[in-house]
């Protein structure tokens, strides 16, 4: 409610209410001082000021002049001792309303819904239609704010648009809700009579549905053009960035073209150096620093060197970045001045016209009490009263002071009576003219029809002469009655015998002077009609009575008229003895007649030059009609003169006949000689014309009317013109609406300037024409049917086709309302219309746009600048699952998936807040949680001033595309992975397989996001399955042993499944029983999900590959399972390849055996040579070194050490030589001697020779050789082979368990194989395999190792044409298979 606290506004002004606030300390509060100090408001005293304990109350504040202001205060305590008090000072607001009242007649007439609010948003005016609309009486509204009369939420809406309007230079169209009512209001700033800015609003009562309105409103903002009502521009200046913005209007005012980019310096240069420029710079600086707004009117020199005055408002604001932004409006007030001047000129013109009227036209306000004020006075008032119009407008009392004190009370009573009876007022009074003395005035006043406000208008005429004539008339009657005329008695010689007092009084002659004289010679003068004198004589001579008039002269030579009756007085003889003359002074009567005659002449002269008409009426009817009257009515004098009295009356408008009758009766009773009235008469063409009649009445002596001289003036136009004047300032003009008033018959009575502009007719052309003749053919029926309803008192708004003078058809919105007459009858129709071409175009466009938007396959979201959703199209609802109602007002982040980097959104906002378009992709989430992708283009929408008003996002669902892209990317990744892996396995040596597999597992594992992959081999020899390769995502540790050494009979349980489906998926724990068993095997201690795929060839399962995930439910996609299968197939192929290679090698080996042997021998020879030289050299070098150092020392201790060292070195040398000898033997014997050997016995016998080693190491030896097996072999070699392999098993036994050696034989066709399997340390074949059988290769840190055993064995086996194979696993043991 309390909107402002600007203390500076608190001036003892005439305005309704002022607010101010004071802060202070309760302890030393002195309200009077406070108010004076802080507000500058002169305070004389404050009554009941001590009563600030209450939170609210009333008090009276007395101003310095003793005037009292009622004030209401609202007190709130900030703390114990400080308070904060808001005062609302009230004053009679009548004055304010008075000043505003004048223009609103037509609003009332037009039934437009209009209201005006003051700068504090209190209603100053509300049209009755508006009052009806919101269901309140006008007195409940005026002086109140929306918060007082509307629901809170409705008031909030109105308030915000009001504030928007006040802060904007634009014409604001708002949609406001009053409870369940919705209306569209066009709001704009109005300048109030007090110089402040208020709000005017025209409420457009159209038939749009609620939703359509909202849509319309929403879209119109994007389509609406710059408002055309004010040439007000907008500027903005950012000090920090030194950027200056001008709206187009500002550019226009500067007369620069639209591409002109202003800068501070160039902008300032438009003002002449000196005071003006300094003032502006100072104001800008001050506002930037203090934040207080400025308002400057300074002279600008435009780019085209024109000088004009501009008004600049400036405000400051600190934006988000902390930089000060100055902004404001820029107005070309030169234009305004010109307009004002034009208005003044027009007013003056009208004044000139009204000055020609013999009197004063006035308009005044009277509230029935003490407030009386002139609203308008024509300049004639100066002539009449000696006071200028301005003086009297300013101070009504001056007019009262000039009124004769005797008449003043009478006048006041008349005013009061007229006000309360609302009847027309006519009265006479005397005024004191400073030069002419007392003058008689007559005034006629009446109020307008349907008027809420107490405005009266009328005419004052100077009727002094007329009154004097009348007064003298009265005097004559008195005299006549009292003295009974002039009486002259003569003798027979016609000599005066006696005269009465009246004679003396009139002629100046006393009886003594005139006795014996002839009255004729005495009284007659040069102007006396001699014929009349002769007539009297002849009459008297014939002794006839004479009756007639004659001009006489008084003693002073003054002429006077008498009505004279002379009769002879006869004696008894019939002889004339005396003459008796009774004379009535008819001078005044004669004078009157002459005056009339003179004025008649004058009128006739005037009639030739003016539009006034003169009518002379006597008993016979219309005696005379001037050409002016003929023009007014269309009847000629001839026609008029033939009219019977009844015809004359019939010619008068029926409504006026009764009035006229009253007036005439009144006149007859009062014997008024002058009267004025306005009646409507029917012209010859059938139309009525309003005529102002000024009648002079000549009475017969019997009191009947002899003649009436009537000055007739056609006031139809004048009345309209007066209204037009009011209309100049009229709100309707301000909002640009065309007004046409017609009679009930449709004849146009009045059109305003906007109607002239819109329809192309001038007022003069169109007036009197029937409106139907101006309507296009298609609209005539519509208009007629509407008019018929309007004439019954209804009001309609329609959109229809209208036609201009040129015949162009234009769409208009027209509101037709009845004009109410005095008797509550409809006397005409007022049509308020405006061009809706643009609106229709925009509606079409809106329709198109709306349709486009609504049917768009793209998602469209419109938000305000705070990212609150204002609109979404149906596609949005479809895609997101949210309805418009659900998302309205919400932030679009509602549908964020939350998976995108915040940076994307930051970029987005940074881009669009700079006014640029942003393009990108979003991942969003629908209401039901579906994730989808969208491409989005987000653009800021700018309003006319270039400010961002909204953002619009156009988005396209690209989820499928995105998913497809991702899928493709995934597939191509899979492809490349497969290619990579496949490459690894091509031309892969057997020894490289493990490395390649390891890498592949890792690649696949990270690709498909599993945590463990393992390869399980089936070992059919040992009937078990074991993991031979495993990849783990590093962070996860699992029990690695869960699948090690699983008996094959258990594994085989799922072989059927493998062979049938190719894949076993354990995606949940509740698998069937069979699967449960498997799960028991493969399950680790953590919950996991497994996929197992077989590695097969020709229905033989070689093993399987397993993929595990832990703790997370992982659903594998088909293509991932495909990938796993591919990989499994790859592994299968690898297996096949290995088998094939093996087969190939076997078949080739026979062919290439000879060659191989040769090569092998060569290789061995070379190796031998190299080893020989190396080992021998090594020992030799040692010995030489020892010898050298021996020479260097004399120390006996050292020498002893050196000596023992030498012994070791030489021992080593001998050993080496012996080994070499052994080897040389094998190498030498290419074809060693073979003999049949009973294998089992031979093995047992050989082992017996090392029984000490076996028993001391607690080795468990198991021999499994058929008793009867006999082989053909070299005994020495076989012994060496058995010894070497057996001692190796003992030597390299595992420290953690009892050594075990299994020896068994196998017969494969004619090939005998002897296996040696131990559970010892084992060897990493990947690492050492290639040199396992090399010379001097030692793999275990055993002091007995020489690195020759396996070398010798291999050589011996190969010398016999066989081969030796090894399988080994570190920590588990080794299996040597000798192919004998």
């Amino acid at each position: 409610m309390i909107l402002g606290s600007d203390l500076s506004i608190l001036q003892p002004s005439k305005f309704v209410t002022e607010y101010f606030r004071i802060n202070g300390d309760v302890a030393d509060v002195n309200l009077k001082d406070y108010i004076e100090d802080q507000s500058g408001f002169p305070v004389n005293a404050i009554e009941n000021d001590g009563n600030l304990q209450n939170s609210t109350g009333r008090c009276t504040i007395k101003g310095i002049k003793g005037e009292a202001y009622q004030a209401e205060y609202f007190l709130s305590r900030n703390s114990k001792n400080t308070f904060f008090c808001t005062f609302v000072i009230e004053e009679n607001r009548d004055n304010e309303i008075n000043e505003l009242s004048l223009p609103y007649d037509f609003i009332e007439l037009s039934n437009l819904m209009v209201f005006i609010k003051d700068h504090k948003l209190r209603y100053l005016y509300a049209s009755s239609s508006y009052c009806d609309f919101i269901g309140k009486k006008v007195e409940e509204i005026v002086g109140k704010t929306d918060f007082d009369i509307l629901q809170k939420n409705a008031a909030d809406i109105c308030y915000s648009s009001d504030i928007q309007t006040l802060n904007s230079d634009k014409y604001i169209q708002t949609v406001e809700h009053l409870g369940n009512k919705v209306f569209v209001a066009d709001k704009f700033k109005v300048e109030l009579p007090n110089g402040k800015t208020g709000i005017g609003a025209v409420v457009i009562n159209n038939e749009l549905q609620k939703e359509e309105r909202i849509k319309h409103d929403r879209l119109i903002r994007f389509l609406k053009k710059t408002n055309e009502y004010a040439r007000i521009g907008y500027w903005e200046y950012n000090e920090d960035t030194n950027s200056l913005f001008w709206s187009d209007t500002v550019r226009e005012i500067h007369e620069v073209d639209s591409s002109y980019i202003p800068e501070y310096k160039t902008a300032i240069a438009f003002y002449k150096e000196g005071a003006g420029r300094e003032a502006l710079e100072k104001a800008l600086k001050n506002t930037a620093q203090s934040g207080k707004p400025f308002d400057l009117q300074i002279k600008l020199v435009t780019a085209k060197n024109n000088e004009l005055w501009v008004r600049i408002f400036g405000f400051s604001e600190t934006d988000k970045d902390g930089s000060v932004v100055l902004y404001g409006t820029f107005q070309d007030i030169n234009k305004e001045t010109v307009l004002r001047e034009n208005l003044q000129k027009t007013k003056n013109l009208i004044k000139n016209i009204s000055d020609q009227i013999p009197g004063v036209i006035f308009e005044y306000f009277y509230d029935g009490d003490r407030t009386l004020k002139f609203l308008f006075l024509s300049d004639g008032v100066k002539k009449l009263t000696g006071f200028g119009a301005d003086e009297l407008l300013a101070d009504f009392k001056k007019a009262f002071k000039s009124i004769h004190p005797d008449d003043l009370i009478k006048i006041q009573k008349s005013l009061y009576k007229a006000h309360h009876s609302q009847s027309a007022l006519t009265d006479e009074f005397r005024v004191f003219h400073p030069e002419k003395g007392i003058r008689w005035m007559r005034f006629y006043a009446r109020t307008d029809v349907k008027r809420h406000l107490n405005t009266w208008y009328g005419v004052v005429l100077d009727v002094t002469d007329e009154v004097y004539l009348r007064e003298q008339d009265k005097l004559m009657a008195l005299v006549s009655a009292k003295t009974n005329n002039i009486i002259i008695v003569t003798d027979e010689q016609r000599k005066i015998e006696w005269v009465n007092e009246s004679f003396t009084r009139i002629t100046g002659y006393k009886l003594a002077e005139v006795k014996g004289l002839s009255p004729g010679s005495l009284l007659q003068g040069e102007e006396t009609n001699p014929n009349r004198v002769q007539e009297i004589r002849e009459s008297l001579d014939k002794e006839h009575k004479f009756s007639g008039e004659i001009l006489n002269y008084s003693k002073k030579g003054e002429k006077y008229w008498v009505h004279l009756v002379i009769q002879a007085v006869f004696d008894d003889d019939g002889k004339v003895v005396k003459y008796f003359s009774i004379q009535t002074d008819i001078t005044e009567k004669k004078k009157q007649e002459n005056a009339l005659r003179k004025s008649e002449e004058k009128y006739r002269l005037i009639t030739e030059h003016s539009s006034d008409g003169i009518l002379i009426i006597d008993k016979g009817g219309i005696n005379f009609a001037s050409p002016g009257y003929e023009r007014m009515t269309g009847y000629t004098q001839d026609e008029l003169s033939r009219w019977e009295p009844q015809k004359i009356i019939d010619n008068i408008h029926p409504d006026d006949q009764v009035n006229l009758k009253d007036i005439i009766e009144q006149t007859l009773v009062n014997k008024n000689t002058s009267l004025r009235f306005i009646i409507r008469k029917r012209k010859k063409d059938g139309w009525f014309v309003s005529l102002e009649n000024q009648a002079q009445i000549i009475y017969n002596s019997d009191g009947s009317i002899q003649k009436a001289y009537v000055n007739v003036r056609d006031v139809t136009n004048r009345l309209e013109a007066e209204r037009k004047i009011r209309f100049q300032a009229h709100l309707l003009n301000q909002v640009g609406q065309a007004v046409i008033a017609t009679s009930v018959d449709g004849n146009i009575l009045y059109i305003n300037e906007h109607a002239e502009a819109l329809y192309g007719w001038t007022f003069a052309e169109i007036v009197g024409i029937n409106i139907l003749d101006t309507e296009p053919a298609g609209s005539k029926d519509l208009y007629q049917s509407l008019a018929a309803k309007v004439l019954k008192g209804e009001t309609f708004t329609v959109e229809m086709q209208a036609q201009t003078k040129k015949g162009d058809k234009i769409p208009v919105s027209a509101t037709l309302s009845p004009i109410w007459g005095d008797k509550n009858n409809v006397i005409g129709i007022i049509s308020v219309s405006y061009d809706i071409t643009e609106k229709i175009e925009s509606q079409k466009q809106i329709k198109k746009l709306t349709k486009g938007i609504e049917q768009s396959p793209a998602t469209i979201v419109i938000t305000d600048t705070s990212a609150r959703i204002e609109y979404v199209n149906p596609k949005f609802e479809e895609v997101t699952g949210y309805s418009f109602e659900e998302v309205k007002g919400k932030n679009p982040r509602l549908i964020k998936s939350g998976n995108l980097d915040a940076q994307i959104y930051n970029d987005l906002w940074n881009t669009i807040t700079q006014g640029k378009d942003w393009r990108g992709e979003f991942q969003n989430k629908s209401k039901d949680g579906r994730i989808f992708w969208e491409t989005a283009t987000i653009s800021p929408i700018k309003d006319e001033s270039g400010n961002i008003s909204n953002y619009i996002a156009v988005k396209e669902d690209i989820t499928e595309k995105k998913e497809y892209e991702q899928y493709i990317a995934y597939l191509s990744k899979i492809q490349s992975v497969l290619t990579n892996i496949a490459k690894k396995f091509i031309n892969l040596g057997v020894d490289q397989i493990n490395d390649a597999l390891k890498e592949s597992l890792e690649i696949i594992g990270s690709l498909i996001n599993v945590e463990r992959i393992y390869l399980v081999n089936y070992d059919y020899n040992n009937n078990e399955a074991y993991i031979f390769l495993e990849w783990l995502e590093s962070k996860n540790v699992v029990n690695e042993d869960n699948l090690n050494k699983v008996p094959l009979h258990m594994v085989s349980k799922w072989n059927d499944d493998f062979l049938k489906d190719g894949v076993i998926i354990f995606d949940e724990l509740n698998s069937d029983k069979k699967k449960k068993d498997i799960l028991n095997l493969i399950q680790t201690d953590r919950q996991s999900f497994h996929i197992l795929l077989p590695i097969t060839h020709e229905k033989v399962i070689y093993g399987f590959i397993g993929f595990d995930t832990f703790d997370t439910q992982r659903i594998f996609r088909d293509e991932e399972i495909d990938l796993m299968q591919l990989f499994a197939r790859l592994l299968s192929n690898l297996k096949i390849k290995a088998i094939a290679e093996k087969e190939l090698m076997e078949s080739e080996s026979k062919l290439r055996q000879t060659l191989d042997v040769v090569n092998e021998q060569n290789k061995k020879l070379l190796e031998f040579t190299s080893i020989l030289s190396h080992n021998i050299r090594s020992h030799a070098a040692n010995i030489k070194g020892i010898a050298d150092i021996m020479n260097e020392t004399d120390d006996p201790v050292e020498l002893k050490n050196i000596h023992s060292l030498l012994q070791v070195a030489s021992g080593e040398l001998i050993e080496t030589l012996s080994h070499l000898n052994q080897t040389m033997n094998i190498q030498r014997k290419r074809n060693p001697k073979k003999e049949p050997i009973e294998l089992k016995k031979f093995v047992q016998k050989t082992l017996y020779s090392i029984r000490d080693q076996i028993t001391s190491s607690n080795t468990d030896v198991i021999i499994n050789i058929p008793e009867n097996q006999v082989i053909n072999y070299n005994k020495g070699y076989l012994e060496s082979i058995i010894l070497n392999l057996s001692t190796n098993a003992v030597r390299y036994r595992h420290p953690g368990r009892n050594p075990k050696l299994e020896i068994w034989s196998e017969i494969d066709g004619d090939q005998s194989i002897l296996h040696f399997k131990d559970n010892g340390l084992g060897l990493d074949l990947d690492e050492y395999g290639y040199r396992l059988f090399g010379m001097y290769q030692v793999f275990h840190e055993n002091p007995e190792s020489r690195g020759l055993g396996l070398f010798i064995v291999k050589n011996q086996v190969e010398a016999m044409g066989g081969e030796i194979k090894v399988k080994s696993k570190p920590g588990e043991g080794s299996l040597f298979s000798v192919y004998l």
Partner: protein
Amino acid sequence: MKVWIVDDNAVFRTLVKMQISKIEKNITVEEFEHGKSAMGAVLKYDSDNQPDIILLDINMPVMNGWEFISAYDKLDVNFDRTWIYIVTSSIDPKDFERARDSEYVHDFLVKPIEIDNLKKIFTKVNSSRT
């Protein structure tokens, strides 16, 4: 200065230790029987205990000289301070070439090492340290 001798032959190691003690008392010598035990010490390297010189034999059990060097390569640690000398009785030109091509091998010495050669090596290493 710190010297490692990596050689499976104990006689050779003792011999070299004797020679070193003749040159300078202030040299610490550590012995390793094969590459693997030396590797174990390498893994405990830090700036203090890095050797200045490694005398590395090629033919050794468990982990030979070349295997030691390739393991060394994989460690990806900065070993600039340490100069490796291959000390072998091999006269296989392949070994020589391999030593020449290896970025880690500073020189190739053939057993037995002359005491003067050792002196030169120490002088060289010392001068490079200052």
